[in-house]
């Protein structure tokens, strides 16, 4: 066995890090790339890097290191694909790239149940904005125009709703 191989991080540690931060990293990459396939590639590349260079990192800073590598891999994937970020985002935010099944895979059933419950607890006007913005993919300008409310009001409702949704999700273990 070579010296380099001996220095590499323990596979069990890689597995443990994958189990611990895998979901979070995947979500981060999907958020950056808005493309499940690209995110998957970047995710894989991140853990390959961890296996190769993980021994150079300190244990307490490994989470940050993983996210930084994931970010770099995502940017690299973007450049490789030569896709304009804004165009990609438009596609990814729409239903073509990220379908309900992919989203369901990305989040746990418990999370979905909590979000459903949180949405049911929202006031109707906030529910409406959440639906129009996230589910129907309308911009805030369009939402404000359709509802006949100021843009700031639409933004405010969405922001308040998000805070409540996040608070609900924080309850899960």
């Amino acid at each position, binding site marked *: 066995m070579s010296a380099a191989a001996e220095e590499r991080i323990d596979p069990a540690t890689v597995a443990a890090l994958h189990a611990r931060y895998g979901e979070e990293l995947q*979500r981060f990459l999907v958020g950056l790339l808005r493309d499940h396939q690209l995110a998957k590639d970047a995710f894989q590349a991140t853990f390959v890097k961890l296996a190769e260079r993980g021994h150079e990192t300190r244990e307490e800073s490994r989470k940050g290191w993983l996210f930084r590598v994931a970010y*770099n891999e995502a940017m690299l994937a973007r450049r490789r694909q030569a896709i304009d970020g804004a165009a990609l985002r*438009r596609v990814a935010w729409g239903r073509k790239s990220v379908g309900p099944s992919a989203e369901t895979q990305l989040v746990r059933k418990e999370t979905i149940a909590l979000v459903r419950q949180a949405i049911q607890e929202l*006031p109707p006007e906030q529910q409406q904005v959440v639906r129009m913005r996230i589910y129907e993919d309308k911009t805030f300008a369009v939402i404000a125009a359709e509802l006949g409310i100021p843009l700031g009001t639409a933004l405010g409702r*969405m*922001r308040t709703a998000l805070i409540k949704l*996040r608070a609900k999700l924080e309850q899960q273990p």
Partner: protein
Amino acid sequence: MNVTPREDLDWLAFRYLAAELSPAESLHFESRLEHDQQAREAVGRLVETTCAVRSLDWDVASRVMPVRRSRPWYRRRAAQVVTGLAVGLMVALLVWGPDRARQQREPEGRFAKVPPAVELAVVWSHVRTELNTQRVEEAAGWRWLASAEGETDAADSTDEEDAPDAPDWIVSAVVAMESQEEAQRTPAANIEGI
């Protein structure tokens, strides 16, 4: 040191994900993601949230979640107060309402008119006769004793003395009946007089 509150950061991440940031803001946030772990985690959180929201079946959800107009607390409280007052007013009307007040103003004699006076009088007369007959029959077996003691014979006493006390409503009914009969008799007498 990053002093941005977590909610602000989440909101920024959401706007970034929703492409609601200007190109300059978007680039700035991406450069921040390069070194800011909190910003990265915020992106991860918001992806989780938006994906969960989008994975819901909103068509079903909209049936499950009817849009309810929630009224502010002061309107709900006002509605409760008005309802309470209305109920209280209804109860007050039932207890002390005009009918009751009118009834209280009525003289007691008029209450006596409520049962048919003539019928009551007939019933009472019949009961009274029966009672007296029964007493006479019972007393017949004990008359020897009464005589021996030198007491007043029950047969010597008048009916009025032996009769049980009539209740007020019976007295009123009888009085009413008598006055009615008298009123009927008077015109006849006048006719005879003619």
